[in-house]
């Protein structure tokens, strides 16, 4: 079998899911409006803290503003929940059919998760960039907007790190899917994961703002690659070799999570018990 033929089912499940999720336009607009509001609150609070003295601030206010808008633009990448379709399958028992498909279940679900997250992020991110990078400067609020990366290098490294962010997001979604398969319920995994992901990624607060002794630990853990690493690279807070190291760490975690996740999902699927007819 050629590589092309081997990849075809995964590509088609990816593009199918992507196109389906892209249809939810009203949800995208509502999400965009909500994210603008939360972005404004966060920026106003940052501005008030900085106004009282920025001597101990780990980054400039402008960079904190950039970080905030990027966070709102890419919010939907945060793996707060297992894939809802997988949760439905587990609830209905249809998950048993997944074992009958002549494909690798992990790769199959991974492709679905990628299509799901990319399609949810794409319209929101486009609207957010139009708002924060184009509209705000046009109405004279450029200081509060989202500027482009300061250099070509930063832009290139960010692009690379953004790929890592997308792959990491899907790998964590697959972990949550596996928890759902193993525990036969989606009640537990989602909400607790959301609490962890929000803080450890840097979404609640850029990791650099946490006490200095905590920072090396916060940067090294896998979830930093969802928000803190790519966004710090974007505004140049991480540059050169430290940026390259952070990206390597990000991809390293993707590989580790994918390997562990694949083994764990395989075991859970073999132990699957479907009741009733």
């Amino acid at each position, binding site marked *: 079998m050629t590589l092309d033929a081997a990849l075809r089912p995964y590509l088609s499940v990816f593009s199918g899911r992507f196109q389906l999720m892209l249809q939810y336009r009203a949800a995208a607009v509502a999400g965009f409006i909500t994210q603008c*509001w939360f972005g404004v609150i966060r920026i106003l609070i940052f501005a008030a803290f900085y106004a*009282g003295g920025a001597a101990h601030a780990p980054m400039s206010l402008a960079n904190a503003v950039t970080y905030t808008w990027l966070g709102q633009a890419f919010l939907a990448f945060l793996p707060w929940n297992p894939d809802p379709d997988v949760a439905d399958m587990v609830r209905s028992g249809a998950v048993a059919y997944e074992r009958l498909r002549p494909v690798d279940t992990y790769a199959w679900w991974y492709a679905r998760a990628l299509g799901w997250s990319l399609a949810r992020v794409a319209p929101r991110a486009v609207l957010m960039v139009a708002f924060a990078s184009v509209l705000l400067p046009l109405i004279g609020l450029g200081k509060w907007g989202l500027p482009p990366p300061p250099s070509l290098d930063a832009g290139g490294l960010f692009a690379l790190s953004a790929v890592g962010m997308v792959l990491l997001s899907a790998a964590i979604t697959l972990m949550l899917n596996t928890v759902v398969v193993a525990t036969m319920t989606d009640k537990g995994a989602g909400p607790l994961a959301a*609490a*962890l992901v*929000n803080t450890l990624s840097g979404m609640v607060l850029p990791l650099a703002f946490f*006490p200095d002794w905590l920072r090396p630990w916060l940067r090294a853990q896998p979830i930093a690659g969802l928000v803190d690493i790519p966004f710090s690279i974007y505004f140049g807070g991480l540059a050169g070799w430290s940026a390259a190291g952070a990206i390597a760490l990000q991809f390293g975690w993707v590989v580790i999570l994918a390997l562990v996740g694949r083994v764990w999902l395989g075991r859970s699927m073999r132990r699957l018990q479907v009741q009733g007819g």
Partner: protein
Amino acid sequence: MNGLSLYGRYIAASIRGQMAYPAGLAIQTVASFMITVVEFIGVWALFHRFGQIAGWRLGEVALFYGLASVIFAIADAVTRGFDVFGSVFVKTGGFDRLLLRPRSPALQLAGYELRLTRIGRFSQGAIVFAIGAAMTHFVFTPFAAGVLLFAIAGGVALFAGLFILQATLAFWTVESLEAVNILTYGGEAAAEYPLNVYARWFRDFLIWGVPIGCVTYLPMLAAMGRADPLGAPSWLTPLAPLAGFAFLGASLFIWGFGVRRYASAGG
């Protein structure tokens, strides 16, 4: 049976229903607690670094934060029926059934569910408030306790009014109702900090537009015995939560208008 005892029966049934899955209930309550706790860790880290915001210290902000969180937890727990009104009642035509019963639809929706999982968020708010009270040596005088209870009642009324407006919108569209979240969840998020930290336009919106500041910021100042740095007269600050009840009244009026023009989608 009068409205209140009917509401009591609805709530008792809802609690029994949720108790049928104790493990799920416990996990979701703990999760609701954890999510809000980690958010407060973010606030703590900011104060660890900056020391103060617009003259307020961590302990004082914790009081505002705790009050807003407690108010929102209660409001979110009691208004579930309005929150899901568009998807559960209008889209499916289920609202027709409510209209056939000889009781007000608003009462039936209020009794739809009392979300016990919100105990998680409520406890987080109460703990944050207690920590703030200990840090600032807050004194629970009868006056302060009275103002706080009044603020909680007015605040629950205000957020209930917002959820009712969200439900009213469902008579016109069931799309994008989550955009109202910016006023409910987003309003609570804004009220976690004292209003004088914000820019003028944003503050004005939170006092005159959707009066969230009237149920959190102003009464909290009164309970602390502090003058408003923005200059609201001190006789007004303990009375400000009245705005929440007025908002609920206006929301119910608009809701009634929406109910009268409701036409079933059939089915």
